[in-house]
Protein backbone atom coordinates (compact mmCIF):
# COMPACT_ATOMS: atom_id res chain seq x y z
CA UNK A 1 0.00 0.00 0.00
CA UNK A 2 1.54 3.25 -1.12
CA UNK A 3 -1.15 5.49 0.25
CA UNK A 4 0.97 6.81 3.11
CA UNK A 5 3.42 8.83 1.06
CA UNK A 6 0.76 10.23 -1.19
CA UNK A 7 1.83 8.34 -4.33
CA UNK A 8 -0.44 8.10 -7.32
CA UNK A 9 -3.24 5.63 -6.97
CA UNK A 10 -2.07 2.41 -8.54
CA UNK A 11 -3.71 -0.52 -6.83
CA UNK A 12 -7.30 -1.12 -5.81
CA UNK A 13 -6.49 -0.34 -2.17
CA UNK A 14 -4.96 3.06 -2.81
CA UNK A 15 -7.94 3.77 -4.98
CA UNK A 16 -10.20 3.73 -2.01
CA UNK A 17 -7.77 5.20 0.51
CA UNK A 18 -6.58 8.32 -1.27
CA UNK A 19 -9.42 9.78 -3.31
CA UNK A 20 -11.71 9.39 -0.31
CA UNK A 21 -9.73 12.13 1.36
CA UNK A 22 -9.96 14.28 -1.74
CA UNK A 23 -13.74 14.27 -1.68
CA UNK A 24 -14.79 11.46 -4.03
CA UNK A 25 -17.34 8.96 -2.83
CA UNK A 26 -15.78 5.70 -1.75
CA UNK A 27 -17.10 2.21 -1.12
CA UNK A 28 -15.92 0.05 1.70
CA UNK A 29 -13.86 -3.05 1.02
CA UNK A 30 -15.90 -5.45 -1.20
CA UNK A 31 -15.30 -8.32 1.21
CA UNK A 32 -17.17 -6.45 3.96
CA UNK A 33 -20.38 -7.71 2.36
CA UNK A 34 -19.16 -11.25 2.96
CA UNK A 35 -17.98 -10.55 6.50
CA UNK A 36 -21.20 -8.87 7.54
CA UNK A 37 -23.32 -11.57 5.98
CA UNK A 38 -21.04 -14.23 7.43
CA UNK A 39 -21.53 -12.92 10.95
CA UNK A 40 -25.29 -12.83 10.40
CA UNK A 41 -25.29 -16.30 8.87
CA UNK A 42 -23.37 -17.79 11.77
CA UNK A 43 -25.84 -16.31 14.22
CA UNK A 44 -28.76 -17.62 12.17
CA UNK A 45 -27.29 -21.09 11.93
CA UNK A 46 -26.83 -21.14 15.69
CA UNK A 47 -30.39 -19.97 16.27
CA UNK A 48 -32.10 -22.19 13.70
CA UNK A 49 -30.01 -25.34 13.51
CA UNK A 50 -28.70 -25.93 17.00
CA UNK A 51 -32.13 -26.42 18.63
CA UNK A 52 -33.06 -29.01 15.96
CA UNK A 53 -29.86 -31.00 16.35
CA UNK A 54 -31.01 -33.16 19.19
CA UNK A 55 -34.44 -33.86 17.68
CA UNK A 56 -35.64 -36.54 15.33
CA UNK A 57 -35.21 -35.94 11.62
CA UNK A 58 -37.11 -32.70 10.92
CA UNK A 59 -39.30 -32.16 7.90
CA UNK A 60 -37.55 -31.71 4.56
CA UNK A 61 -39.43 -28.48 3.91
CA UNK A 62 -38.18 -26.96 7.15
CA UNK A 63 -34.58 -27.76 6.24
CA UNK A 64 -35.02 -26.17 2.84
CA UNK A 65 -36.39 -22.98 4.37
CA UNK A 66 -33.38 -22.83 6.67
CA UNK A 67 -31.06 -23.23 3.72
CA UNK A 68 -32.88 -20.56 1.72
CA UNK A 69 -32.22 -18.01 4.44
CA UNK A 70 -28.45 -18.18 3.92
CA UNK A 71 -28.41 -16.70 0.36
CA UNK A 72 -30.90 -14.08 1.48
CA UNK A 73 -28.54 -13.02 4.25
CA UNK A 74 -25.67 -12.77 1.76
CA UNK A 75 -27.84 -10.75 -0.61
CA UNK A 76 -28.68 -8.34 2.21
CA UNK A 77 -24.96 -8.03 2.98
CA UNK A 78 -24.21 -7.30 -0.68
CA UNK A 79 -26.91 -4.64 -0.94
CA UNK A 80 -25.77 -3.05 2.29
CA UNK A 81 -22.23 -2.86 0.85
CA UNK A 82 -23.50 -1.42 -2.45
CA UNK A 83 -25.43 1.40 -0.84
CA UNK A 84 -22.79 2.39 1.73
CA UNK A 85 -20.30 5.04 0.75
CA UNK A 86 -18.08 7.57 2.47
CA UNK A 87 -15.91 10.55 1.73
CA UNK A 88 -13.98 13.33 3.40
CA UNK A 89 -14.92 16.77 2.25
CA UNK A 90 -14.26 20.19 3.75
CA UNK A 91 -13.02 18.68 6.98
CA UNK A 92 -16.10 16.53 7.42
CA UNK A 93 -16.31 12.77 7.13
CA UNK A 94 -19.59 11.77 5.55
CA UNK A 95 -21.00 8.26 5.63
CA UNK A 96 -24.13 7.36 3.70
CA UNK A 97 -25.85 4.02 4.10
CA UNK A 98 -29.18 2.28 3.85
CA UNK A 99 -31.26 1.23 0.86
CA UNK A 100 -34.81 1.94 1.95
CA UNK A 101 -34.07 4.27 4.82
CA UNK A 102 -31.10 6.34 3.71
CA UNK A 103 -28.99 7.71 6.50
CA UNK A 104 -26.34 10.32 5.96
CA UNK A 105 -24.00 10.97 8.85
CA UNK A 106 -21.55 13.83 9.16
CA UNK A 107 -18.54 13.67 11.43
CA UNK A 108 -16.61 16.95 11.64
CA UNK A 109 -12.94 16.00 11.73
CA UNK A 110 -12.11 18.80 14.14
CA UNK A 111 -14.30 17.11 16.75
CA UNK A 112 -12.70 13.68 16.46
CA UNK A 113 -11.63 12.54 19.86
CA UNK A 114 -10.39 9.05 19.13
CA UNK A 115 -10.42 6.46 16.39
CA UNK A 116 -10.65 2.83 17.45
CA UNK A 117 -9.75 -0.14 15.32
CA UNK A 118 -11.80 -3.32 15.77
CA UNK A 119 -11.19 -6.61 13.98
CA UNK A 120 -13.79 -9.34 14.59
CA UNK A 121 -12.58 -12.90 14.03
CA UNK A 122 -14.12 -13.27 10.58
CA UNK A 123 -12.82 -9.89 9.42
CA UNK A 124 -9.32 -10.82 10.55
CA UNK A 125 -9.46 -13.94 8.43
CA UNK A 126 -9.94 -11.69 5.40
CA UNK A 127 -7.45 -9.06 6.56
CA UNK A 128 -10.13 -6.46 7.24
CA UNK A 129 -10.62 -3.97 10.03
CA UNK A 130 -13.34 -1.65 11.22
CA UNK A 131 -12.72 1.97 12.15
CA UNK A 132 -14.84 3.59 14.83
CA UNK A 133 -14.65 7.34 14.83
CA UNK A 134 -15.65 8.89 18.10
CA UNK A 135 -16.47 12.53 18.47
CA UNK A 136 -15.81 14.79 21.42
CA UNK A 137 -19.31 16.22 21.46
CA UNK A 138 -21.53 15.14 24.30
CA UNK A 139 -23.60 12.76 22.22
CA UNK A 140 -21.00 9.98 22.34
CA UNK A 141 -21.93 9.08 18.77
CA UNK A 142 -19.54 6.86 16.83
CA UNK A 143 -19.05 6.66 13.09
CA UNK A 144 -18.33 3.20 11.75
CA UNK A 145 -16.43 2.26 8.63
CA UNK A 146 -16.82 -1.50 8.43
CA UNK A 147 -14.74 -2.85 6.83
CA UNK A 148 -11.51 -1.58 5.31
CA UNK A 149 -8.38 -3.54 4.54
CA UNK A 150 -5.87 -3.52 7.38
CA UNK A 151 -3.34 -1.28 5.65
CA UNK A 152 -6.04 1.06 4.44
CA UNK A 153 -7.56 1.30 7.90
CA UNK A 154 -4.22 2.14 9.51
CA UNK A 155 -3.41 4.76 6.85
CA UNK A 156 -6.87 6.30 7.00
CA UNK A 157 -6.74 6.42 10.77
CA UNK A 158 -3.42 8.24 10.76
CA UNK A 159 -4.67 10.66 8.11
CA UNK A 160 -7.96 11.42 9.84
CA UNK A 161 -6.14 12.02 13.12
CA UNK A 162 -3.68 14.30 11.35
CA UNK A 163 -6.48 16.20 9.63
CA UNK A 164 -8.39 16.51 12.88
CA UNK A 165 -5.39 18.15 14.54
CA UNK A 166 -4.62 20.35 11.57
CA UNK A 167 -1.13 18.95 11.00
CA UNK A 168 0.09 17.86 7.55
CA UNK A 169 -1.80 14.86 6.22
CA UNK A 170 1.21 12.62 5.92
CA UNK A 171 2.03 12.85 9.64
CA UNK A 172 2.07 9.31 11.03
CA UNK A 173 -0.16 8.42 13.98
CA UNK A 174 1.31 9.69 17.27
CA UNK A 175 3.80 7.48 19.07
CA UNK A 176 2.73 5.49 22.09
CA UNK A 177 4.48 4.60 25.30
CA UNK A 178 3.75 1.14 26.67
CA UNK A 179 2.68 1.15 30.32
CA UNK A 180 1.45 -2.31 31.20
CA UNK A 181 1.00 -5.77 29.70
CA UNK A 182 -1.23 -8.56 30.97
CA UNK A 183 0.45 -11.99 30.79
CA UNK A 184 -1.85 -14.73 29.48
CA UNK A 185 -1.08 -17.11 32.35
CA UNK A 186 -2.13 -14.55 34.91
CA UNK A 187 -5.28 -13.75 32.95
CA UNK A 188 -6.29 -17.42 32.86
CA UNK A 189 -5.55 -17.86 36.56
CA UNK A 190 -7.52 -14.73 37.42
CA UNK A 191 -10.53 -15.94 35.44
CA UNK A 192 -10.41 -19.34 37.12
CA UNK A 193 -10.31 -17.59 40.49
CA UNK A 194 -13.19 -15.25 39.67
CA UNK A 195 -16.88 -15.84 40.42
CA UNK A 196 -17.93 -17.62 37.20
CA UNK A 197 -14.71 -19.65 37.14
CA UNK A 198 -15.28 -20.89 40.68
CA UNK A 199 -18.91 -21.72 39.92
CA UNK A 200 -17.92 -23.78 36.89
CA UNK A 201 -15.23 -25.50 38.94
CA UNK A 202 -17.64 -26.39 41.75
CA UNK A 203 -20.25 -27.55 39.22
CA UNK A 204 -17.64 -29.72 37.50
CA UNK A 205 -16.55 -31.37 40.75
CA UNK A 206 -20.19 -31.86 41.73
CA UNK A 207 -20.88 -33.48 38.38
CA UNK A 208 -17.96 -35.89 38.72
CA UNK A 209 -19.15 -36.90 42.19
CA UNK A 210 -22.69 -37.32 40.86
CA UNK A 211 -21.50 -39.43 37.94
CA UNK A 212 -19.77 -41.80 40.34
CA UNK A 213 -22.73 -42.05 42.69
CA UNK A 214 -25.67 -41.94 40.28
CA UNK A 215 -24.89 -41.98 36.55
CA UNK A 216 -28.53 -41.67 35.47
CA UNK A 217 -29.10 -38.51 37.51
CA UNK A 218 -25.85 -37.07 36.15
CA UNK A 219 -27.01 -37.45 32.54
CA UNK A 220 -30.24 -35.60 33.32
CA UNK A 221 -28.31 -32.83 35.11
CA UNK A 222 -26.03 -32.34 32.12
CA UNK A 223 -29.05 -31.93 29.86
CA UNK A 224 -30.66 -29.38 32.16
CA UNK A 225 -27.48 -27.42 32.74
CA UNK A 226 -26.27 -27.23 29.14
CA UNK A 227 -27.79 -23.81 28.42
CA UNK A 228 -26.68 -21.94 31.58
CA UNK A 229 -23.21 -23.48 31.35
CA UNK A 230 -22.99 -22.34 27.74
CA UNK A 231 -23.95 -18.83 28.84
CA UNK A 232 -21.31 -18.75 31.57
CA UNK A 233 -18.73 -20.11 29.12
CA UNK A 234 -19.54 -17.41 26.55
CA UNK A 235 -19.27 -14.72 29.22
CA UNK A 236 -15.95 -16.11 30.43
CA UNK A 237 -14.62 -16.28 26.89
CA UNK A 238 -15.61 -12.66 26.25
CA UNK A 239 -13.66 -11.57 29.26
CA UNK A 240 -10.74 -13.74 28.23
CA UNK A 241 -10.82 -12.32 24.72
CA UNK A 242 -11.08 -8.75 25.97
CA UNK A 243 -8.12 -9.25 28.27
CA UNK A 244 -5.97 -11.46 26.06
CA UNK A 245 -2.59 -9.91 25.37
CA UNK A 246 -3.84 -6.57 26.66
CA UNK A 247 -1.34 -3.77 26.50
CA UNK A 248 -1.92 -0.31 27.88
CA UNK A 249 -0.04 2.52 26.26
CA UNK A 250 -0.02 6.25 26.80
CA UNK A 251 -0.75 8.25 23.65
CA UNK A 252 -1.09 12.03 23.49
CA UNK A 253 -4.86 11.77 23.15
CA UNK A 254 -5.39 9.33 25.99
CA UNK A 255 -4.74 5.75 26.98
CA UNK A 256 -4.62 3.21 24.20
CA UNK A 257 -5.72 -0.38 24.90
CA UNK A 258 -4.94 -3.20 22.52
CA UNK A 259 -6.23 -6.67 23.17
CA UNK A 260 -7.98 -9.69 21.77
CA UNK A 261 -7.48 -13.26 20.71
CA UNK A 262 -10.28 -13.76 18.17
CA UNK A 263 -11.72 -10.28 17.94
CA UNK A 264 -8.92 -7.79 18.37
CA UNK A 265 -9.43 -4.15 19.16
CA UNK A 266 -7.31 -1.07 19.59
CA UNK A 267 -9.27 1.38 21.65
CA UNK A 268 -8.44 4.84 22.92
CA UNK A 269 -9.77 6.12 26.20
CA UNK A 270 -9.59 9.90 26.02
CA UNK A 271 -8.28 11.23 29.30
CA UNK A 272 -10.82 14.01 29.67
CA UNK A 273 -13.74 11.64 29.39
CA UNK A 274 -12.85 9.42 32.31
CA UNK A 275 -15.54 9.95 34.94
CA UNK A 276 -14.33 7.56 37.57
CA UNK A 277 -11.86 4.77 38.17
CA UNK A 278 -12.54 1.70 40.27
CA UNK A 279 -10.05 -0.77 41.70
CA UNK A 280 -11.50 -4.14 42.63
CA UNK A 281 -9.69 -6.81 44.62
CA UNK A 282 -11.83 -9.96 44.97
CA UNK A 283 -11.22 -12.24 47.94
CA UNK A 284 -9.64 -14.99 45.87
CA UNK A 285 -7.16 -12.63 44.23
CA UNK A 286 -5.99 -10.91 47.38
CA UNK A 287 -3.47 -13.56 48.53
CA UNK A 288 -1.81 -13.11 45.13
CA UNK A 289 -1.86 -9.33 45.44
CA UNK A 290 -3.89 -8.89 42.27
CA UNK A 291 -6.54 -6.38 41.44
CA UNK A 292 -8.56 -5.11 38.51
CA UNK A 293 -8.71 -1.52 37.36
CA UNK A 294 -11.85 -0.29 35.58
CA UNK A 295 -12.50 3.09 34.03
CA UNK A 296 -15.93 4.56 33.59
CA UNK A 297 -16.34 6.78 30.56
CA UNK A 298 -19.09 9.31 29.94
CA UNK A 299 -21.81 8.24 27.56
CA UNK A 300 -25.46 8.71 26.85
CA UNK A 301 -27.83 5.81 27.11
CA UNK A 302 -27.14 4.12 23.81
CA UNK A 303 -29.83 2.71 21.65
CA UNK A 304 -29.32 -0.23 19.35
CA UNK A 305 -26.30 -2.34 18.76
CA UNK A 306 -23.97 0.39 17.62
CA UNK A 307 -22.03 0.54 20.83
CA UNK A 308 -22.84 -2.76 22.31
CA UNK A 309 -19.23 -3.29 23.23
CA UNK A 310 -19.09 -0.01 25.06
CA UNK A 311 -22.53 -0.45 26.53
CA UNK A 312 -21.26 -3.24 28.74
CA UNK A 313 -20.02 -2.44 32.21
CA UNK A 314 -17.05 -0.18 32.80
CA UNK A 315 -14.06 -0.95 30.61
CA UNK A 316 -11.30 -2.91 32.32
CA UNK A 317 -8.17 -0.84 31.98
CA UNK A 318 -6.23 -3.63 33.60
CA UNK A 319 -8.17 -6.93 33.75
CA UNK A 320 -5.72 -8.29 36.29
CA UNK A 321 -2.53 -6.79 37.59
CA UNK A 322 -0.33 -6.38 40.60
CA UNK A 323 -0.93 -3.53 42.98
CA UNK A 324 2.23 -1.79 41.76
CA UNK A 325 1.01 -1.94 38.15
CA UNK A 326 -2.36 -0.53 39.18
CA UNK A 327 -0.73 2.28 41.15
CA UNK A 328 1.53 3.14 38.23
CA UNK A 329 -1.45 3.29 35.88
CA UNK A 330 -3.50 5.36 38.33
CA UNK A 331 -0.82 8.03 38.28
CA UNK A 332 -1.22 8.20 34.51
CA UNK A 333 -5.00 8.46 34.67
CA UNK A 334 -5.43 10.90 37.54
CA UNK A 335 -2.62 13.08 38.81
CA UNK A 336 -2.25 13.87 42.49
CA UNK A 337 -4.53 11.35 44.22
CA UNK A 338 -5.67 11.89 47.81
CA UNK A 339 -3.79 9.83 50.36
CA UNK A 340 -5.93 10.49 53.43
CA UNK A 341 -8.51 7.90 54.48
CA UNK A 342 -11.10 9.07 56.97
CA UNK A 343 -12.73 6.27 58.94
CA UNK A 344 -16.44 6.30 59.73
CA UNK A 345 -17.44 6.56 63.41
CA UNK A 346 -17.22 3.25 65.32
CA UNK A 347 -21.01 2.99 65.67
CA UNK A 348 -21.24 2.55 61.87
CA UNK A 349 -20.27 -1.05 62.63
CA UNK A 350 -23.89 -1.67 63.63
CA UNK A 351 -25.15 -0.49 60.26
CA UNK A 352 -22.44 -2.03 58.05
CA UNK A 353 -20.94 -4.89 60.06
CA UNK A 354 -19.14 -6.48 57.10
CA UNK A 355 -17.94 -3.57 55.08
CA UNK A 356 -17.01 -1.50 58.13
CA UNK A 357 -13.50 -2.90 58.22
CA UNK A 358 -12.49 -1.30 54.91
CA UNK A 359 -14.88 1.65 54.87
CA UNK A 360 -13.41 5.09 54.40
CA UNK A 361 -13.00 8.10 52.20
CA UNK A 362 -10.54 10.84 51.47
CA UNK A 363 -10.26 13.88 49.30
CA UNK A 364 -8.01 16.64 48.08
CA UNK A 365 -8.62 19.61 45.81
CA UNK A 366 -9.21 17.51 42.74
CA UNK A 367 -10.42 14.04 43.70
CA UNK A 368 -12.49 12.01 46.09
CA UNK A 369 -11.60 8.44 46.95
CA UNK A 370 -13.88 5.96 48.70
CA UNK A 371 -13.18 2.44 49.90
CA UNK A 372 -15.65 -0.27 50.78
CA UNK A 373 -16.27 -4.00 50.66
CA UNK A 374 -15.39 -6.94 52.83
CA UNK A 375 -15.22 -9.88 50.45
CA UNK A 376 -14.59 -7.79 47.37
CA UNK A 377 -12.61 -4.69 48.21
CA UNK A 378 -13.52 -1.76 46.04
CA UNK A 379 -11.78 1.59 45.81
CA UNK A 380 -13.38 4.32 43.70
CA UNK A 381 -11.78 7.54 42.56
CA UNK A 382 -13.96 10.36 41.27
CA UNK A 383 -12.63 13.73 40.08
CA UNK A 384 -14.56 16.52 41.78
CA UNK A 385 -14.75 18.28 38.42
CA UNK A 386 -16.83 15.39 37.04
CA UNK A 387 -19.44 15.27 39.81
CA UNK A 388 -22.91 15.82 38.37
CA UNK A 389 -24.98 15.98 41.51
CA UNK A 390 -24.62 15.34 45.22
CA UNK A 391 -27.12 13.42 47.32
CA UNK A 392 -27.38 12.97 51.04
CA UNK A 393 -29.35 9.85 52.01
CA UNK A 394 -30.19 8.55 55.45
CA UNK A 395 -32.32 5.52 56.20
CA UNK A 396 -34.09 4.60 59.46
CA UNK A 397 -31.15 2.68 60.93
CA UNK A 398 -28.67 5.37 59.97
CA UNK A 399 -30.91 8.02 61.54
CA UNK A 400 -31.06 6.12 64.82
CA UNK A 401 -27.26 5.87 64.84
CA UNK A 402 -26.79 9.51 63.79
CA UNK A 403 -25.25 8.57 60.43
CA UNK A 404 -25.79 9.59 56.84
CA UNK A 405 -24.35 8.67 53.44
CA UNK A 406 -23.35 11.07 50.70
CA UNK A 407 -23.45 10.03 47.05
CA UNK A 408 -21.44 11.80 44.37
CA UNK A 409 -23.11 11.03 41.02
CA UNK A 410 -21.11 11.03 37.81
CA UNK A 411 -22.00 10.61 34.15
CA UNK A 412 -20.39 7.17 34.13
CA UNK A 413 -22.38 3.99 33.81
CA UNK A 414 -21.50 2.05 36.90
CA UNK A 415 -19.11 3.85 39.21
CA UNK A 416 -20.03 6.62 41.56
CA UNK A 417 -18.56 7.54 44.89
CA UNK A 418 -20.49 6.84 48.08
CA UNK A 419 -19.28 8.33 51.33
CA UNK A 420 -21.04 5.73 53.42
CA UNK A 421 -22.10 6.00 57.05
CA UNK A 422 -20.54 9.29 57.99
CA UNK A 423 -21.34 11.12 61.18
CA UNK A 424 -24.39 13.34 60.70
CA UNK A 425 -22.53 16.54 61.56
CA UNK A 426 -19.81 15.63 59.07
CA UNK A 427 -22.42 14.86 56.40
CA UNK A 428 -24.13 18.20 56.93
CA UNK A 429 -20.80 20.01 56.73
CA UNK A 430 -19.94 18.11 53.53
CA UNK A 431 -23.30 18.91 51.97
CA UNK A 432 -22.57 22.56 52.57
CA UNK A 433 -19.01 22.59 51.29
CA UNK A 434 -18.86 19.89 48.58
CA UNK A 435 -20.90 21.83 45.97
CA UNK A 436 -18.46 24.72 46.27
CA UNK A 437 -15.43 22.45 46.11
CA UNK A 438 -16.84 20.76 42.98
CA UNK A 439 -17.45 24.15 41.40
CA UNK A 440 -13.91 25.22 42.18
CA UNK A 441 -12.51 21.97 40.73
CA UNK A 442 -14.59 22.46 37.57
CA UNK A 443 -13.33 26.00 37.22
CA UNK A 444 -9.72 24.81 37.50
CA UNK A 445 -10.32 21.98 35.02
CA UNK A 446 -11.92 24.44 32.60
CA UNK A 447 -8.94 26.79 32.91
CA UNK A 448 -6.64 23.82 32.26
CA UNK A 449 -8.47 22.94 29.08
CA UNK A 450 -8.32 26.51 27.83
CA UNK A 451 -4.56 26.67 28.24
Amino acid at each position, binding site marked *: MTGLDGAQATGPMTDSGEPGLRGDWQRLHPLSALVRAGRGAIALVVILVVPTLGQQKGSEVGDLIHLAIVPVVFLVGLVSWLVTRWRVEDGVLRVESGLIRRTSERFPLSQIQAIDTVRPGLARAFGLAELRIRLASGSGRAGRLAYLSNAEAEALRARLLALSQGVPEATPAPAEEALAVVPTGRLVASLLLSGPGLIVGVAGVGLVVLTILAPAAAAATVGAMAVPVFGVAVGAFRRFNAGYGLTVAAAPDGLRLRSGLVETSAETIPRGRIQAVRMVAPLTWRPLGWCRLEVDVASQKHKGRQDRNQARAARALLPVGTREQAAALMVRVFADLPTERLRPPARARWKSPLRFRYLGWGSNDGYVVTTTGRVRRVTDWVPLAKVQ*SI*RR*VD*GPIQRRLGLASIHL*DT*AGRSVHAVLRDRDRAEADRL*MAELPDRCREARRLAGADRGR
Partner: protein
Amino acid sequence: MEVAESADDGALIWNTPSPRLRVLRRYEVVGVTLVAVILAAGAGLAAGGASAAALAGVGAIVGGAVGDMVAGRRVRAWAYAERSDDLLVRRGVMFRRVSVIPYGRMQYVEVAAGPLERAFGLATVQMHTAAAASDARIPGLPAAEASRLRDQLTTLGEAQAMGL
Protein backbone atom coordinates in the same frame (compact mmCIF):
# COMPACT_ATOMS: atom_id res chain seq x y z
CA MET B 1 -49.92 27.26 46.06
CA GLU B 2 -46.48 26.84 47.45
CA VAL B 3 -45.88 27.53 51.06
CA ALA B 4 -42.66 29.26 51.95
CA GLU B 5 -41.38 27.99 55.24
CA SER B 6 -38.28 29.21 56.94
CA ALA B 7 -35.94 26.24 56.97
CA ASP B 8 -33.49 25.25 59.63
CA ASP B 9 -30.46 26.06 57.46
CA GLY B 10 -30.47 29.83 57.41
CA ALA B 11 -32.13 31.98 54.81
CA LEU B 12 -32.93 29.08 52.50
CA ILE B 13 -36.51 29.18 51.26
CA TRP B 14 -38.01 25.74 50.79
CA ASN B 15 -40.91 25.55 48.36
CA THR B 16 -43.31 22.66 48.68
CA PRO B 17 -45.63 21.04 46.13
CA SER B 18 -49.20 22.23 45.87
CA PRO B 19 -51.63 21.05 48.60
CA ARG B 20 -53.70 19.67 45.71
CA LEU B 21 -51.01 16.96 45.39
CA ARG B 22 -52.17 15.69 48.80
CA VAL B 23 -55.74 15.40 47.44
CA LEU B 24 -54.52 13.75 44.24
CA ARG B 25 -52.57 11.16 46.23
CA ARG B 26 -55.68 10.51 48.36
CA TYR B 27 -57.72 9.83 45.20
CA GLU B 28 -55.03 7.42 44.05
CA VAL B 29 -55.03 5.60 47.39
CA VAL B 30 -58.85 5.45 47.40
CA GLY B 31 -58.84 3.99 43.89
CA VAL B 32 -56.32 1.30 44.77
CA THR B 33 -58.14 0.57 48.04
CA LEU B 34 -61.48 0.08 46.24
CA VAL B 35 -59.90 -2.49 43.91
CA ALA B 36 -58.19 -4.17 46.88
CA VAL B 37 -61.45 -4.29 48.85
CA ILE B 38 -63.30 -5.92 45.96
CA LEU B 39 -60.53 -8.47 45.40
CA ALA B 40 -60.14 -9.22 49.11
CA ALA B 41 -63.89 -9.56 49.64
CA GLY B 42 -64.17 -11.80 46.60
CA ALA B 43 -61.32 -14.01 47.81
CA GLY B 44 -62.85 -14.10 51.33
CA LEU B 45 -66.24 -15.07 49.91
CA ALA B 46 -64.70 -17.88 47.91
CA ALA B 47 -62.63 -19.13 50.83
CA GLY B 48 -64.94 -18.92 53.85
CA GLY B 49 -68.25 -17.13 53.27
CA ALA B 50 -69.62 -13.74 54.30
CA SER B 51 -67.75 -13.25 57.59
CA ALA B 52 -64.38 -13.94 55.96
CA ALA B 53 -65.30 -11.57 53.15
CA ALA B 54 -66.17 -8.81 55.63
CA LEU B 55 -62.92 -9.40 57.54
CA ALA B 56 -60.84 -9.24 54.38
CA GLY B 57 -62.67 -6.12 53.22
CA VAL B 58 -62.05 -4.36 56.55
CA GLY B 59 -58.41 -5.40 56.35
CA ALA B 60 -58.10 -3.84 52.90
CA ILE B 61 -59.75 -0.62 54.15
CA VAL B 62 -57.35 -0.43 57.11
CA GLY B 63 -54.49 -0.96 54.65
CA GLY B 64 -55.85 1.89 52.56
CA ALA B 65 -56.01 4.18 55.59
CA VAL B 66 -52.40 3.40 56.45
CA GLY B 67 -51.45 3.97 52.81
CA ASP B 68 -53.17 7.35 52.86
CA MET B 69 -51.24 8.34 55.98
CA VAL B 70 -47.93 7.32 54.40
CA ALA B 71 -48.83 9.15 51.18
CA GLY B 72 -49.59 12.28 53.20
CA ARG B 73 -46.26 12.17 54.97
CA ARG B 74 -44.46 11.62 51.70
CA VAL B 75 -46.16 14.61 50.11
CA ARG B 76 -45.17 16.75 53.07
CA ALA B 77 -41.56 15.58 52.78
CA TRP B 78 -41.12 16.92 49.22
CA ALA B 79 -39.51 20.34 49.01
CA TYR B 80 -37.16 22.25 46.77
CA ALA B 81 -35.06 25.36 47.09
CA GLU B 82 -33.46 27.45 44.36
CA ARG B 83 -30.03 28.70 45.36
CA SER B 84 -27.84 30.93 43.27
CA ASP B 85 -25.79 28.07 41.76
CA ASP B 86 -27.79 24.94 42.38
CA LEU B 87 -31.17 23.41 43.03
CA LEU B 88 -31.88 21.56 46.27
CA VAL B 89 -34.50 18.83 46.29
CA ARG B 90 -35.58 17.15 49.52
CA ARG B 91 -37.76 14.07 49.64
CA GLY B 92 -38.53 10.80 51.41
CA VAL B 93 -39.84 9.74 54.81
CA MET B 94 -38.11 6.45 55.61
CA PHE B 95 -35.08 7.16 53.45
CA ARG B 96 -34.59 10.88 53.48
CA ARG B 97 -32.71 12.34 50.57
CA VAL B 98 -31.38 15.78 49.85
CA SER B 99 -30.00 16.32 46.34
CA VAL B 100 -27.84 19.19 45.19
CA ILE B 101 -27.90 19.69 41.40
CA PRO B 102 -25.76 22.52 40.00
CA TYR B 103 -27.61 24.41 37.27
CA GLY B 104 -24.53 24.08 35.08
CA ARG B 105 -24.85 20.31 35.09
CA MET B 106 -28.39 20.35 33.78
CA GLN B 107 -28.91 18.82 30.35
CA TYR B 108 -32.62 19.38 29.96
CA VAL B 109 -35.75 19.98 31.98
CA GLU B 110 -38.79 17.82 31.54
CA VAL B 111 -42.28 18.90 32.50
CA ALA B 112 -44.73 16.01 32.53
CA ALA B 113 -48.37 15.81 33.56
CA GLY B 114 -50.37 12.59 33.58
CA PRO B 115 -54.16 12.60 33.08
CA LEU B 116 -54.87 12.72 36.80
CA GLU B 117 -52.29 15.44 37.36
CA ARG B 118 -53.80 17.45 34.48
CA ALA B 119 -57.26 17.16 36.03
CA PHE B 120 -55.80 18.76 39.16
CA GLY B 121 -53.88 21.38 37.19
CA LEU B 122 -50.57 19.97 38.37
CA ALA B 123 -47.32 18.99 36.66
CA THR B 124 -44.06 17.21 37.51
CA VAL B 125 -40.78 18.97 36.81
CA GLN B 126 -37.68 16.86 36.39
CA MET B 127 -34.16 18.11 35.86
CA HIS B 128 -31.89 15.75 33.95
CA THR B 129 -28.13 15.65 34.28
CA ALA B 130 -25.63 13.40 32.56
CA ALA B 131 -25.74 11.13 35.61
CA ALA B 132 -28.57 8.62 35.62
CA ALA B 133 -28.58 8.56 39.41
CA SER B 134 -29.29 12.25 39.85
CA ASP B 135 -32.80 12.51 41.10
CA ALA B 136 -34.25 15.96 40.80
CA ARG B 137 -37.93 15.32 40.41
CA ILE B 138 -40.52 17.65 41.87
CA PRO B 139 -44.10 16.39 41.56
CA GLY B 140 -47.34 18.24 42.10
CA LEU B 141 -46.38 21.76 41.08
CA PRO B 142 -49.20 24.04 39.91
CA ALA B 143 -48.96 24.36 36.12
CA ALA B 144 -47.91 28.03 36.28
CA GLU B 145 -45.22 27.36 38.86
CA ALA B 146 -44.01 24.38 36.81
CA SER B 147 -43.50 26.47 33.69
CA ARG B 148 -41.89 29.27 35.69
CA LEU B 149 -39.45 26.77 37.24
CA ARG B 150 -38.77 25.23 33.84
CA ASP B 151 -37.93 28.60 32.29
CA GLN B 152 -35.88 29.61 35.30
CA LEU B 153 -33.87 26.38 35.27
CA THR B 154 -33.32 26.56 31.52
CA THR B 155 -32.06 30.13 31.75
CA LEU B 156 -29.75 29.39 34.66
CA GLY B 157 -28.59 26.15 33.01
CA GLU B 158 -27.64 27.96 29.82
CA ALA B 159 -25.84 30.67 31.73
CA GLN B 160 -23.74 28.21 33.73
CA ALA B 161 -23.49 25.35 31.24
CA MET B 162 -20.35 23.27 31.18
CA GLY B 163 -19.28 20.16 29.34
CA LEU B 164 -18.92 16.68 30.65
